[in-house]
């Protein structure tokens, strides 16, 4: 049951082979059984879920249901949920109950999806291992000694372990694609402006984008139909016609031109990952795609630029957590300064503090030009590289992450080494492009992910290419033992 595709679940529900309440209960039972070990949820909402499932069953019985009505899902705990705690993985929001829904949550509710709970994440989505969460690390179902990736590590682990069929994630520098890669999932980071950011707690506003995570390209295409769309509450939301992301899934990809950036395929690339990708390339060649070597000359600078821009925006975005209107406040502040400094010091974890300090530094008088402004200029060059490449190719293929899942605690003592996990993903965010990660093999029983990057708003093409690949391979159908 828990490994079925969304299409199968949907047809079972519509055919009344199973009710939404039964399906929801099934997943709730699995969460109960496995999540003590995995820690993939911060909050589980059984009552809310069962009540929604009951409503979904009514709609289904009246044949008044949408394609995803009654299907369980999980929300990353970065999306605000009305009357249900939203922590963003932080102590500073441990007591925060939003009086509003994020647009993404609203859309999921309207589609009849059943929210099982809120998934664990790196604090304020800052991390690549899910170890910065105030609620403790999440374990990778493929190897309980390893991280699931981050920051959407809870969502990834929950899907991989069959605790939910799909979940939302957010991706600022790779936070959907990298955990998808480490947990053998398919995850899409949509074009910036495609999915509303309203009610999605901000980390770095010009980079953050919500998106779908699931087992297959088809699942996330169906999910994307719910998540995407213009929202007047988000000034950066792009007004365009509603798209059916499943429409082009089976389009032939003969003559599709795929670029291989020479900067990604260097001797630094892990051999097993390289091999897995070479095999994937062969499959695409069999499907008729053509490969061209391209260059993204500024891509080595993506990490420096990203780790300037993202902390800068974060330092400002996180100023609102001041202990005045909501969230954690220190005991007995002796004056206003003490209230601010102690509430924030107690509420934020070390990684968030590091980023706030970095961001404050790169924006401060005397350093702005050398760091922030310089980074925004190179960001332009990084984007131009992609635009230039897309004149020659339809999409770009490369690794998602430089390694497979690494052992828990192995990188926490050296934060900067952790930052390199975003080496292939962050440029995509800087340029606002869509990117998808899909399973292409294993190294020592740990999943390997491959990334496809497309021009702005070409999600359909990426999903199409990923789907055809998954028709030819069964990597994405593999599940970890013991779940």
């Amino acid at each position, binding site marked *: 049951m828990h490994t079925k595709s969304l299409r199968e679940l949907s047809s079972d529900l519509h055919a009344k082979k199973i009710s939404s309440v039964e399906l929801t209960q099934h997943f709730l039972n699995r969460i109960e059984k496995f999540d003590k070990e995995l820690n993939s949820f911060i909050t589980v909402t059984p009552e809310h879920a069962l009540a929604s499932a009951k409503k979904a069953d009514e709609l289904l019985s009246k044949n008044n249901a949408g394609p995803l009505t009654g299907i369980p899902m999980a929300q990353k705990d970065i*999306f*605000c949920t009305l009357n249900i705690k*939203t922590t*963003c993985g932080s102590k500073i*929001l441990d007591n*925060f109950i*939003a*009086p*509003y829904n*994020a647009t993404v949550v609203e859309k999921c509710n309207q589609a009849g999806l059943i929210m099982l709970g809120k998934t664990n994440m790196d604090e304020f989505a800052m991390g690549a291992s899910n170890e910065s969460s105030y609620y403790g690390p999440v374990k990778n179902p493929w190897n309980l000694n390893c991280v699931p990736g981050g920051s959407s590590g809870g969502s990834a682990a929950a899907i991989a372990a069959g605790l939910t069929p799909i979940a939302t994630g957010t991706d600022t520098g790779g936070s959907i694609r990298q955990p998808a890669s480490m947990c053998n999932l398919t995850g899409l980071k949509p074009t910036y402006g495609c999915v509303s*950011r*309203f*009610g*999605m*707690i*901000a980390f*770095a*506003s*010009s980079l953050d984008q919500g998106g779908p995570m699931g087992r297959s390209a088809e699942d996330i295409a169906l999910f994307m139909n719910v998540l995407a769309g213009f929202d*007047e*509450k*988000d*000034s*950066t939301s792009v007004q365009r016609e509603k798209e059916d992301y499943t429409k082009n899934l089976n389009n032939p990809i003969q003559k599709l031109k795929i670029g291989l950036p020479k900067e990604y395929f260097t001797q630094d690339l892990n051999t097993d990952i390289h091999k897995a990708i070479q095999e994937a390339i062969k499959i695409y060649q069999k499907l008729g795609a053509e490969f061209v070597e391209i260059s993204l000359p500024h891509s080595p600078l993506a990490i420096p630029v990203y780790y300037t821009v993202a902390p*800068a*925006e974060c*330092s*400002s975005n*996180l*100023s*609102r*957590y*001041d202990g*005045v*209107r*909501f969230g954690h406040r220190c005991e007995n502040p002796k004056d*206003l300064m003490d209230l*601010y400094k102690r509430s924030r010091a107690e509420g934020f974890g070390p990684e968030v503090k590091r980023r706030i300090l970095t961001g*404050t530094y790169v*924006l*401060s*008088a005397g350093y*702005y030009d050398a760091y*922030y402004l310089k980074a925004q200029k190179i960001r332009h060059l990084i984007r131009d590289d992609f635009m230039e490449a897309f004149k020659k190719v339809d999409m770009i293929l490369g690794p998602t992450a430089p390694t497979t899942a690494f052992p828990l605690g192995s990188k926490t003592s050296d934060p900067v080494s952790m930052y390199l996990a975003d080496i292939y993903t962050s440029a995509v965010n800087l340029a606002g492009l869509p990117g998808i990660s899909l399973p292409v093999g294993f190294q020592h029983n740990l999943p390997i992910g491959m990334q496809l990057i497309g021009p702005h708003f070409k999600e359909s093409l990426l999903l199409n290419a990923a789907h055809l690949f998954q028709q030819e391979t069964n990597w994405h159908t593999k599940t970890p033992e013991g779940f």
Partner: protein
Amino acid sequence: MTWETVIGLEVHVQLLTKSKLFSGASISYGAEPNTQACAIDLGMPGVLPVLNKEAITMATKLGVSINATVNTRSVFARKNYFYPDLPKGYQISQYDLPIVSNGHLNIILENGEIKKIGITRAHLEEDAGKSLHEAMPNTSGIDLNRAGTPLLEIVSEPDMRSAKEAVAYLKTLHSLVKYLDICDGNLQEGSFRCDANVSVRKKGAEKFGTRAELKNINSFKFVEKAINIEVERQIEILESGGTVVQETRLYDSDKNETRSMRSKEDAHDYRYFPDPDLLPVVISDKFITDIKNNLPELPNQKQERFIKQYSLSEYEATILASSKEMANYFEETVKNADAKLSANLIIGELASYLNKNNLDISSSAISSTKLSGLVTRISDGTISKNIAKKVIEEMWNTGKSADEVIESQGLKQVSDSGEIIKVIEEIIKNNPSQVAEYRSGKDKLFGFFVGQVMKAMGGKANPAQLNELLKKYLAS
């Protein structure tokens, strides 16, 4: 040594929109605390700003009325600092790309000369909330109703050379924003707030002195006082060999002094950067032209029209067009009454009552309709201009109409020649020596006879008629 004062003004104009700059919450004044602060105004997690179109329209209106460049591309930036009345920990403002730049405003100096004051820029920004200190000892209570209210900050060049010039500039700008209907101009409620950058330098010096920024001065009178007292303070420091410190100072109107606001000095590093939640604001040339073509009549246009249409002097027209309310009052009055007489009464008698009572024309005790009634009675000869002064005083005090006052006090002008002749004959009879002197050529005495008759008639004789009759009777 002689010193020259240099003043630049920053005026925060609260725009008369219905909703806030970035949210759909109401901006109306005086609501219960925090009942008009929505999730966006409170800086709740995940919420996002969406820009109010009307604020852009209003800023454009100001821009085209001060001959400024309205920038077709402007950018909102974040100004980062912590303060309890600033919910997000940053204020959304415009920094290096404001919506309006390089304009000017002409002001009229006391000697009637016109001076051009440069306006560097005008930018849109959101207002902060308010900290109230009465709630409990050692605490402050934060009301965020005002947070997010649209402000247009209008920054002048350091072109003013005296407190009086500063006030003239402020009054001109105040009148303009009210004319444009982009601000209610209420200084008490903080809809029109002024910060003054004040410095002094030796006369003839090229370099500006170190300036102090005087914060939030809430009346025109206090602006003048605050600047003067600050100038005195700075001169005193410089003359005793000290140096002026660049700082923010608060004017205390009770003590008539300025004092340093050290709390605001801490960490003046605002870390401005473009707000990633908002995109560049792009407006078309057509948008600007349409606004330009649909502007209401502005003070100087009104002034010219008054001169032509009502044959007023430049002086009269300038005063009557100086505020929208004054101009409206005048035009209401002249609908049914003589323009020249109306202008005289408004600028003369009425203005002096308003000044005495510290009132604005909009709260005049005599309505334009009633004033028009009075003017009519002068024009139709019922009363003289002289008597009118008495009538207007009574109208002001009692709220009665001109006719009621004239009736109840029997002030109606006497135009019955029989009655006037009777009095003239009486006066001639009682002053034989003066009559003789007059008749022997001492013309100056004519005024004496006019006075005597008027006195006897309680001032009610029709002056023209009296002159004519008196000449005739004295001659015979």
